[in-house]
């Protein structure tokens, strides 16, 4: 249920402090909205980038961690580039995504999160490099299990066939790296 607009916000400092600790300070935001002005993805967002920064500054954890915005961000870095106060807004979006997953928050755009997971799993599975063909196959199966959309499936098969005909599909996986163990260790340390 949406909160009524007049309900006052209770500011908390903890979230801003956590962001500062992660080298992502947001306290210098003076609300110029340049980030939202230049963002190409606002049409798909529920709250705008400057809202994310402002709400983070006011410690409104649930609102930012549960927002669709953080998952829709394509990390194009326009906001970070243009912020007059040097706030790494795209970096904040990343931190919020990682934190939302770690804290078990409900993820509004589960398929985007799942894609990122499949991507990382794919690096790990082939010990260092991504096989795009396998990644796309695995993700397509996941999506079919979730919701079978025949139109989309037909489109994907059609595109796959076009790529196949053009010799752009690699069935063989990437070569095993000598540094296989190092890659495993990176993932272990990253708690993945």
């Amino acid at each position: 249920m949406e909160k009524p607009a007049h309900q006052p916000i209770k500011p908390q400092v903890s979230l801003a402090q956590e962001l500062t600790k992660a080298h992502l300070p947001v306290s210098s935001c003076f609300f110029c909205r340049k980030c939202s002005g230049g963002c190409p993805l606002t049409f798909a967002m529920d709250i705008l980038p400057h809202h994310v920064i402002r709400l983070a500054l006011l410690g409104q954890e649930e609102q930012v961690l549960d927002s669709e915005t953080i998952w829709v961000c394509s990390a194009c870095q326009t906001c970070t580039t243009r912020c007059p106060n040097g706030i790494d807004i795209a970096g904040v979006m990343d931190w919020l995504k990682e934190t939302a997953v770690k804290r078990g928050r409900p993820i509004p755009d589960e398929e985007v999160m799942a894609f990122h997971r499949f991507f990382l799993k794919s690096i790990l599975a082939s010990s260092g490099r991504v096989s795009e063909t396998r990644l796309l196959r695995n993700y397509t199966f996941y999506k079919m299990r979730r919701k079978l959309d025949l139109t989309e499936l037909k489109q994907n098969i059609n595109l796959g066939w076009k790529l196949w005909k053009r010799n752009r599909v690699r069935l063989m996986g990437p070569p095993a790296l000598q540094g296989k163990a190092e890659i495993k260790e990176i993932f272990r340390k990253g708690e993945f």
Partner: protein
Amino acid sequence: MEVTYYPGCSLEGTAVDYAASIAGIAPLLDVELVELFDWNCCGASSAHCLSHQIALHLPARNLALAEKVGRDVVAPCALCFNRLKVAEKALLDPEEEELGIPYEGAIKIWDLLDFLTQDVFLEALAPKVVAPLINLRAVCYYGCLVARPPAVTGKTNYENPRNMERLLKVLKVKPIDWSFKTDCCGAGLAVARPDIIDTLVQRLYERALAAKAECFVVSCQMCQANLDLAQERISRKFGKDYYLPVFYFTELIALALGHPDAHKWLAQHVVDPMPLLKSRGLA
């Protein structure tokens, strides 16, 4: 000139046309691309969404490997380049967290477009152009992540890069100025949220057409994929009949220099560039 080459996963996968065109033109410019031994995935646009740690350590391993070799590194993929630069910053900046990987910062990290548009290469190219690409009206479309954020990439012309236009002029292509050369195509959202790509890319088609362009020239395989693979779907969705081939800048170099395999790489695109090239008397 010898450089360390970090191709990245896509160039071993769907972007084999880009990879082949790079391998094709390098000898023509006296560049020897020595592939980085045992390189791994940079984590692309997914690792940094789920794990800051993994997203730094994956490219940092590549950098450490490259520094041992000692040559500068060239990356043809915008994402790979960006992640290498992020790792470099983390490894060299004392204010960033400690990664525990020794790195001096003695090598330079290049994105392929910047590398090949150095004056020395443009000067070397000019006399080699045997098939000038006259009458081809193109807009340059730069990948977001080769330029942004400047604090990471070290670029100064991040809002209005001009180096691809400079290159095209050497090849006698007519680059058309437009305001959307660094706007995002949606990048890695292509798989999970194609609806978003449709909106972003359709805008780019419309803006390119408004500028009276007839093709795109790109330097990023993610941009190429989104502009090329989705064209039929977007045409259907918006009830339009878009025909805008999407060239890699390396393919145009190959065409202008008369490389015998250039047409083979172009045939791997989904939007066939041949009708356009033929209509301009270029094929």
